[in-house]
């Protein structure tokens, strides 16, 4: 993966099919709007194709991608628009594609603070453990637990607490 090549087409297609949707979801959950989410995905694929280390296995590659895109989103939020000027997007811009009865649920999720959204997503959707999330996001395990707890409270989630 780390080799630089002028013809990344094949690798791109393969990687996009494997990770494109996941990366888009993470960036959308973090940044809250589709334009920034797409830009984050673009930057992450450039890094994957030209700057990535040699991966031990697919899990290693996936974890690396999550780290890269969450850091990109973090950088983006500290940058031009997100530090004090907040970008807002009407949910109608992308929610019409979401069918009932899932739409109100997604609306609730998107109304959470992004810190809760991303931790809930990684834990309950991608099935990462608390420790793995702590490593991925470079935060403490107690912070992950706290965010899961608060996220669940805010969503009134009846989720099992398999956090260890």
């Amino acid at each position: 993966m780390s080799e630089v090549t002028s013809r990344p087409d094949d690798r791109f297609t393969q990687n996009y099919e494997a990770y494109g949707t996941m990366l888009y979801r993470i960036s959308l959950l973090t940044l809250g709007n589709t334009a920034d989410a797409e830009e984050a995905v673009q930057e992450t694929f450039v890094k994957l194709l030209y700057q990535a280390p040699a991966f031990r296995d697919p899990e290693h590659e996936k974890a690396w991608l999550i780290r890269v895109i969450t850091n990109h989103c973090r950088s983006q939020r500290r940058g031009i628009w997100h530090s004090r000027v907040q970008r807002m997007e009407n949910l109608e811009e992308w929610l019409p594609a979401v069918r009932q009865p899932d739409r109100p649920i997604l609306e609730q999720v998107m109304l959470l603070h992004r810190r809760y959204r991303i931790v809930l997503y990684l834990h309950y959707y991608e099935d990462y453990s608390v420790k793995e999330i702590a490593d991925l996001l470079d935060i403490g395990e107690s912070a992950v637990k706290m965010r899961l707890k608060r996220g669940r409270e805010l969503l009134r989630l009846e989720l099992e607490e398999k956090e260890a």
Partner: protein
Amino acid sequence: MNKDQFKRAIDQVEPPVEMKERVKRYVENAAKNQQRAGESMRITKMLPKRFGAVAAGFLILALAGGIYYGWEQRNATPHAIGPEPTTTTGQLAPSGTSTPGSVHLPKLELPKETGPLMDMIGLFVYKGRIYTQTASSLAPERAKDLLGEKVGRTTGGIDEWSKQSDYATELASTIGQSDIYSVQGYDESFRLMTYDLVDGQVYAQLYENLNDRSLVKGEDLFGLLGLKNEVTSAEYVTFSNWNQGENHRTTVANRSAVDEFVDALYEAKPLDRKAYLDTDLYSEENGQAFLHLVLKDGTDVELRLFQQGYVSYGFADVLFKVDGSAFENLWKELMQL
């Protein structure tokens, strides 16, 4: 809501079909640029009509002074690092409370409209002041030592749909319920901390009020952080390393360079950061680095350094231009690590 419902809702979030082609073109363009420019990866953004889309599809609202400056000022910003922008009172301080030559960090304002989604930073209200997330942190094992008096418990209640009046509610927050304490050694009007025990583990986070302040020189901000004569160690993280999530820290051995830099920080000239956001300053990844100053009390202060001699701190909309020799000496030191 249960886990299956949560997963099913997330399943509904799919990227637009045409995104694949756009990302592919972007990646191909990057390959061409890479061939052309060797290591340089400066590439033209392929996102179509990004700012047009912003104008059409988004509402850009301000938590802070953004509403005062508007699009006109942003659009007028040159796309290069130009002469330092004017920092006169009239342009930078709509409330007119700053003095000439200073930068005024405006009072936080909530957008007048509610309804659209707004992603928010962590914050809470105390004594009418708004304390926000910060670039300083405290190791849990040191947090207890600095724990001051409990000043209250946040109630949650602020979200993307809140009205301005909600921000006037004491201890309302975006962070749910949490105990708030003063921090020993720091001005309560500047810094407070959340402190919670979860499963026997301490979870502490610092919050700072840097709003509605006029900064005449670096000391007005860095003095609040208490940097001078308090730094016990300094560590450096490359932008690339930070950006890839590794955050590998390298100790800066040359303490005199660090101390000189800190002294110069106190005398640094504040500039309105917004005027620099569209310049090369932020796009030159090789020209940025992160410096962590670890203080005697265990506080870890993260500063963002720009090769041209600028320094920023957290979310504060201010850049500091640091004395040339002090900055250059430290930058050279970092580049050798």
